């Protein structure tokens, strides 16, 4: 479920109402928040961290922090955007700790996708290879560029939502996004040479 889909569903129950119920200690309301926003948060963490276990931990940590700091949610942005901003901080902390303790992580996505579908195995292998290369290119970006690429291109947030998530202005988002895209294009050039 993308962030847009989340926002569409939130029309039924406004964020303020959910947040107010959460502040009152209603775990049922927080369970609803979790059900709505768990997937985008996990996907965002997965794209940033590149490991399912790490993304799982980051997601749980994000929701734990959100439960503890629900009073700071003023309703000036959508609830998923607020959660993504928390997740950004959680992932930044984890990336820092990964730098201190470099651990070789195995991307489990290729292994998962290799089986289970009835597609031509050769095409599937090529596609998996491409996806892995694109993911490697995204993961090779600096953290700031990676965050903005994932939020805008993979999660499909608007410029305003990206700015809210990252805590910067919209023009700054545009400039940083342009630089990130340019860098990503340079990294993907070798992959896309045969297509050109």
């Amino acid at each position, binding site marked *: 479920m993308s962030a847009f889909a989340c926002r569409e569903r939130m029309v039924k129950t406004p964020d303020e109402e959910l947040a107010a119920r*959460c*502040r*009152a*200690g*209603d*775990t049922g309301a*927080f*369970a609803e928040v*979790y*059900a709505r926003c*768990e*997937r985008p948060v*996990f*996907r965002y963490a*997965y*794209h940033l961290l590149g490991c*399912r*276990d790490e*993304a*799982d931990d980051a*997601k*749980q940590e994000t*929701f*734990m922090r959100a*439960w*503890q*700091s*629900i*009073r700071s949610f003023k309703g000036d942005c959508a609830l998923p955007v607020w959660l993504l901003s928390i997740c950004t901080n959680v992932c930044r902390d984890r990336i820092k700790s990964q730098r201190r303790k470099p651990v070789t992580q195995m991307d*489990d*996505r290729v292994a*998962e*996708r290799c089986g289970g579908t009835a597609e031509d195995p050769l095409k599937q292998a090529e*596609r998996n290879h*491409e*996806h892995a290369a*694109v*993911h490697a290119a*995204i993961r090779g970006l600096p953290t700031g560029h990676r965050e903005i*690429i994932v939020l805008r*291109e*993979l999660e*499909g947030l608007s410029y305003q939502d990206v700015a809210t998530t990252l805590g910067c202005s919209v023009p700054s988002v*545009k400039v940083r*996004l*342009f630089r990130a*895209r340019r860098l*990503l*294009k340079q990294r*993907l*050039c070798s*992959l*896309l040479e045969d*297509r*050109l």
Partner: protein
Amino acid sequence: MTRWLARIVECRTVAFLLWDYGTDALAESERERVDRHLESCPGCFTRACEYRLCASAIREVRTAAVPQSKSDWSQLAGRITSAGVASGQLPRPAHRFGWLAGLSAAIIVGLLGTCRLLPPMVMDSQRAQIDMRPAVQPQPVERVVQPTGIERPRVAVAWPKRPVAQPIPSRSEEPVRRQPRRKGLVAVAIGVGRRTAGGRDTPPSMSVESIRVAAVDGTSPAPGDDANRLVAPDPVSVAAMAHVTYVLARAAYDEPAVEARGW
């Protein structure tokens, strides 16, 4: 030249729009602008193709399956319940004021180390002794004042530097390294004049060409430093300079040795 510059500016402007152009996310006006530019700019056209391919590759990754999360709500609910954290209740850090204790310890250790390394300091009573010692009265080097206005006076007023208090030996018979600071300014005014010997019909005369005033704290003007040299061509200016020097000296000393009154 102008067209070339305009082309560069247009390329830079369009470069910001090329990704959104490749994903059809531009407004109609912007899209037409990019279309017009791409027709005439092969470099931007190539970049647009690359951006389009990158965007499509990213889109494929976006739609590709992301693995399911292993954790679910029950785990989070159990974590919330086991931790006993109410909503909106931030966890209390275990060592909230640990940094304060560390900072205090560091300050104490630093103070102890400083006291250990420094030589014995002058006590307040000793410092009072230093201050109470009478300062050597400055003596005028030369004072020549002509009462009549016919001859120009030669003014040379100088105060010797304030003597520095002698260090008081400490208990360990080691010289005290910290010297008391001289307070106030040392004002020096030196007039440079010319004296002509008088003849049978003409009396001897003196003329002042310049006067150097240096109101510095323990430093004297460098030789040849014209910044401190004030030309005083007439006796009035010389008297004014001397008066300024007198005021400065009075600020530095309680009792100036030379009074410039009447100049």
